[in-house]
């Protein structure tokens, strides 16, 4: 197995605020291989964006504590100096953001912003940078790039702007592209185009992509692996087919069931996950998901689960105190259309053997 391009190991990011310490990222680990696409999925406040920003060093501040390792091609980005990190940003690792109108400077021409991306990391002449800008616009499929390169961001449509952002990210042929909610601000049809573009670019340029989103529908298309985050932790991680085929976490089930589907009857209601994302300052005790989990047992309120492999499914990890077979049964029942409330008996039944299982799974209640 070749060395992964990006290896995040037990990353923790905490912010000291006036209201208390915010545990934005609480011990996550994942890897991305060259040419592969990872999707990070979760609600807002799950820590998905913070982990990526931290990769680029954009969360470094006086009130921020960063622990763990982020290995990029073997170098630990957490320990790199600001200057060295800056050389990687926009160069070997690039990032695009959610709202392309506000993410592009309104006062500068698109060409100038693209050229800036180039000139920051390459010592070439201005005209060479401009030529490259035109080339990049063409690459992302913007028609008439010679003319458009001298226009301002507000002269582009939403989808076009996102293409410009992608072009800007690709200026220096990055090895890793992080796309934070790349389609959230766009129409559905444009979404598909952008996703298609990303796929296409990945094939041609051989770069790895991390797609961060709250929308499972987006990641279904283009990702190889998916990591589901909740309350600063990864609660499930698996290849994409496994996530959709045999999800092993109640939160993932909730996400999947809340996706609107074309093949369900029109009057069937969407099934949201009850409750709200927890405060990252005062997190719930035990399993952080337990207040919203329909299948919670008493023990879950005290014991904090770790990300463990799922028996019988290599490469599939879940952080849940329920047994694998219990989970599989619940999922099958849910797929058959059953209501979560009616499935509690599946959980309760198996409580006894659970106890023995639970004792040697001592998760620390202490917050770091």
């Amino acid at each position, binding site marked *: 197995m070749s060395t992964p391009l990006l290896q995040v190991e037990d990353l923790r990011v905490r912010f000291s605020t006036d209201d208390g310490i915010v545990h934005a990222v609480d011990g996550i680990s994942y890897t991305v291989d060259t040419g592969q696409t990872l999707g990070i999925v979760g609600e807002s406040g799950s820590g998905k964006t913070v982990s990526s920003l931290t990769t*680029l060093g*954009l969360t470094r501040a006086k009130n921020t504590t960063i622990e763990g390792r982020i290995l990029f091609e073997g170098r630990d980005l957490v320990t790199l100096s600001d200057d060295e990190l*800056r*050389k*990687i*940003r*926009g*160069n070997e690792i*690039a*990032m695009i*953001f959610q*709202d392309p109108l*506000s*993410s*592009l*400077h*309104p*006062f500068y021409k698109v060409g100038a912003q693209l050229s*800036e*991306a180039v000139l*920051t*990391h390459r010592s070439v002449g201005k005209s060479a940078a401009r030529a490259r800008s035109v080339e990049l616009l063409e690459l992302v499929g913007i028609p008439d790039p010679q003319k458009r390169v001298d226009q*301002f961001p*507000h002269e582009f449509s939403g989808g076009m702007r996102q293409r410009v*952002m992608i072009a*800007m990210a690709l200026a220096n042929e990055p090895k890793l592209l992080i796309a934070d909610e790349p389609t959230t601000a766009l129409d559905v049809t444009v979404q598909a185009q952008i996703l298609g573009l990303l796929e296409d670019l990945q094939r041609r340029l051989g770069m790895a992509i991390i797609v961060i989103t709250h929308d499972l529908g987006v990641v279904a298309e283009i990702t190889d692996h998916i990591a589901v985050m909740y309350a600063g932790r990864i609660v499930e991680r698996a290849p994409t087919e496994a996530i959709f085929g045999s999800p092993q976490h109640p939160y993932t089930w909730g996400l999947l069931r809340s996706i609107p589907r074309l093949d369900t009857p029109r009057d069937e209601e969407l099934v949201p996950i009850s409750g709200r994302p927890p405060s990252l300052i005062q997190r719930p005790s035990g399993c952080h998901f337990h207040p919203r989990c329909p299948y919670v047992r008493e023990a879950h309120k005290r014991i904090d689960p770790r990300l463990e492999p799922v028996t019988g499914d290599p490469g599939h990890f879940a952080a849940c105190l329920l047994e694998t077979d219990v989970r599989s049964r619940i999922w099958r029942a849910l797929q058959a259309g059953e209501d979560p409330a009616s499935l509690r008996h599946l959980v309760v039944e198996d409580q006894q053997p659970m106890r023995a299982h639970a004792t040697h799974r001592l998760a620390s209640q202490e917050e770091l």
Partner: protein
Amino acid sequence: MGRYIIRRVLWCFAMLLIVSAAVFFIFYVLPSADPAVLRAGRNAGPQQIAAIRHSLGLDKPIWQQYLIYVRQVFLHFDFGYSYQYNVPVRQLIFSRLPATIWLTVGAVIIWLAIGLSVGILSAVKRRSILDRTSMTTSLAFISAPVFWLGLVALYLFANDIGQFPILPGQGSYASASTVFQKAASMSLPWCVLAAATSAVYARYMRASMIDTLSEDYIRTARAKGVPERTVIRRHAVRSAITPIVTLLGLDIGILLAGNAILTETVFNIPGVGRLLYNAINVSDLTTIQGITLFGAFFIVFFNLIVDIAYAYLDPRVRYS
């Protein structure tokens, strides 16, 4: 763009007409001294006062006086004669403008240099000691009355009456002949006038910068790997400065209209502000009118400049 400018210029004329009418009206409503009596001097009999009133055209009905005045101004650029000094108002104003322009230009440069840099630094190093100190100091300077500040400056630094005589003091502008002497005589007034204004600009710039630095495009720039200094300079300041431009245009217009009266009084600078103040004290209506119109013109003109500058600075505006 051209049509926009023409429209604004026409509006400028309309504004000036309104302003001149308002001044006329105010002058007649508020109790002010009677210029004919003032001009007539001591012990003038009623006939003499009446004769002077007639020669000044003050015995005509108000609306007629106003129309005559408007015609003179807009067709002949003639602002009449000062009741007090008996010289043409236009000549009087033009003789005072250079001093006010000296004062304004120098003060603007200083307050922009200080205010903007302090504002930017304070925003970038938010909540640091530098930030807190500069904001507190700026509050002090904004609160201090200009007149008091000027007198303190004189008593400290004026080379004739100050404790540490290093800079030219009161009245030195009038006796300055070379450009260098004029600039030297302006150094204390510039500092005093710029003190409060730079404090205001520092606070505005700081707020504007803090707003700008939280914008998404700043994050994008950093994500591109642009050095922080360049992010501040090229991305943040460029955006943060646009509201300041609006402020600056107004401030320059107002200063040229005579708003530096306090500074001019303390330092005995023969500028437009003092002229206006003296004119008000002796009810010299023609001078008051003239200065007010000039002032209105400056303010409107600089507003126009600012609007054009804004369109140049913010490309989104050009298409609205």
